[in-house]
């Protein structure tokens, strides 16, 4: 019988969504043109050649190495692309993903990438063409809601702030705006440099849709431990208690 990774405990929507994001089995919600994603990333002009830091591996004459024979290089590594990044901020008000789940998704599903996790942002570094591809998956899929998530290379402040009156996450640099047509437009790239043209990334999720897809436990959504006076631990808490106890006891080595 083939092994199926379970990834995460719990039968709540949050547990299910967390498993889904870790498994990489993401629902595609939109199709943003690759050129637009490249423009928002801001690392190169759409259509321009990829910059490289070394010649293609095939031209380099690599050493005879069993690991190299087992592990095929990613397209970006094979071509010698430089390493670039994307970074997303996700609102705590029911954004579909969270920093750790973005990292888990990347680490489990994207070869050759380096995820970094903070409280208000999550960065993924990868060879540039690999980055373009994985960013498109993120932008097109259910991990991203255009009002509650945005690509922010710097000045990321906003994940924990109250939402704007139109439901968008606060952004000091106002990189995105809501159009009169209800669509969200990127007007600046991820580090805040104005774009040549506004990029339409589609409509935001409704509040109900965001709550349905979210991976954050909140007492006004799916609570992880009930409420004061009415505690009810999610299975995630039980699993966590188990791991923490073992880790704590393992550290006691009286010999």
């Amino acid at each position: 019988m083939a092994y199926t990774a379970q990834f995460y405990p719990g039968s709540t929507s949050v547990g299910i969504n967390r498993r889904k994001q870790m498994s990489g089995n993401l629902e595609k919600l939109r199709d943003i043109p690759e050129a637009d994603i490249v423009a928002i990333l801001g690392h190169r002009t759409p259509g321009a050649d990829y910059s490289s830091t070394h010649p293609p591996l095939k031209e380099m004459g690599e050493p005879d190495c069993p690991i190299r024979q087992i592990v095929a290089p990613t397209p970006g590594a094979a071509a010698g692309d430089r390493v670039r990044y994307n970074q997303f901020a996700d609102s705590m008000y029911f954004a579909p993903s969270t920093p750790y789940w973005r990292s888990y998704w990347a680490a489990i599903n994207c070869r050759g990438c380096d995820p970094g996790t903070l409280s208000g942002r999550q960065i993924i570094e990868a060879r540039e063409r690999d980055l373009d591809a994985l960013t498109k998956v993120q932008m097109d899929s259910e991990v991203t809601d255009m009002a509650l998530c945005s690509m922010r290379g710097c000045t990321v402040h906003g994940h924990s702030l109250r939402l704007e009156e139109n439901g968008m996450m606060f952004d000091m640099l106002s990189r995105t705006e809501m159009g009169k047509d209800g669509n969200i437009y990127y007007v600046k790239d991820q580090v805040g440099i104005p774009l040549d043209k506004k990029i339409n990334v589609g409509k935001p999720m409704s509040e109900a849709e965001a709550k349905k897809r979210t991976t954050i436990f909140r007492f006004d959504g799916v609570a992880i431990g009930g409420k004061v006076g009415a505690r009810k631990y999610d299975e995630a808490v039980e699993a966590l208690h188990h791991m923490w106890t073992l880790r704590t006891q393992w550290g006691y080595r009286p010999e």
Partner: protein
Amino acid sequence: MAKLHSKKLFIKALNKKFGKDFDLASQKTEYKRLGPEQSARKREFMEFSKKLEGKRGISFYNPYVHAGGIPLGQRQLVPYKLSGTEFIVEGDDLHFVNNPAMQQMWDDVRRTIIVGLDMAHEVLEKRLGKEVTPETINNYLEILNHAMPGAAVVQEHMVETHPGLVDDCNVRVFTGDDALADEIDPQYLVDINKLFPADQAEQLKAAMGKTTWQAIHIPTIVVRSCDGGTTSRWSAMQLGMTFIDAYNMAAGEAAVADLAYAAKHAAVLQMSDMLPARRARGPNNPGGLSFGFMSDMVQTSRTKPQDPVMVSLNVVAAGAMLYDQIWLGSYMSGGVGFTQYATAAYTNDVLDDFSYYAADYAVDKYGGFAKAPATVETAKDIATEATLYGIEQYESFPTLLEDHFGGSQRASVLAACSGIGAGLATGHSQIGLAGWYLSMLLHKEAWGRLGFFGYDLQDQCGPTNVFSYQSDESNPVELRGANYPNYAMNVGHQGEYAGITQSAHAGRGDAFAVNPLIKVCFANPALIFTWDDIRRGFGLGGAREFRAAGDRGLVMPAV
């Protein structure tokens, strides 16, 4: 079931910060993007910078160069309430550069050295044949309080320091011997019986035995020009000269070398250990300061023993400022960001509220402080409840979440209240530490985020060091410090660990956490900083109502 703490202490602060018109529970708001002009302090900065432009001949403070011309203040810039006080100050007022009280707190630590008298007295009596009596001790202390600030004795025609620059310097003695204490001139005595509650005084005297110690505080201006490593040297030189003067000794005979060792070096307690070469600091610098010593320096345990939560919170505040803002934020890193992390632990009554909740939960469930079994199960119970309570508050009050806008701030506060609750409940600092680590993991599990890139590294691997007694990862929390291997990196931990250390001892009703000499030394009423109420001190500094020592104004032209 007794009524649990439900005061939501932070609401008053939120109303002061955001204004009463704000709906504190609303998840949406209008961002007015008013820029730096909305803050009185930023306006002051801009005006001052403008005034200095001509004098400096080079560009200066200008918030409009920020982020391509978009200045900070796109959201509401809010003031801070010092927890447990009525002081409301601007965030800028809590940067240690702008806050003389914070500077003085650190100066008071690094200018302090504790030196024993007993061994010197033995050498005087047995080797030099001198008589030591309360009268000779009083005479010695009079001379020492002349010499220690930097004045001459024995030698003629020496340069001296201006008394107006060094008036904060003083030396007092303390002893576990009540009979001797009665004979000491009160101006030279740190009177344990008067300064401490009776039960604490008995604990302290029992721990000290009939030994006698000098609480030496050299001039602030000296350590500001040199560093903490200077303190023992400065002190030693003046001690030696004073002994020679007070006991009419020859300045050159060999026996004086015995006295010099006994009087200056044999019984010396530095406030902190020196650091290894890669961090390269001498003793009496913050990196070597243990959490137990930090706990003992803070005097709230003496003045408010009936409120163990308040006692712990004041240690958190002292530690957050010294370890985060000054040690990590300046010695080790530099810049301004560390203040933002540290203030979360001592402003706006947030940690206060969460900690009182944890304490009430523990008392209600286990029947009082230090009554719960010191087990992993207790840590699990209290830390889970405290963390879930705190998370619920952040979720219920979006302005609270906005105030602690960084995950590291929230992580510090949630884990600190968990650790303090578990420490108070069990009277065991290691159980408190276990609660801290569980809180961190639970927080991450709930919200899918924790601290900044690296902040939480030590927390995610930390549970394994709670009960470890191996090599360099060992030590009870009392003896761990800023240079403990896993703790040496990141802001938002060390002050809280100190508070957790204190919570265990406050729960037990201990007079001190690890060293009775430190506790008594910092009870010296002549210290400049407000050691019994740390947060009030920071508030006074922020409100520009605190007069620090070490000012050079006396010998400079008026501005």
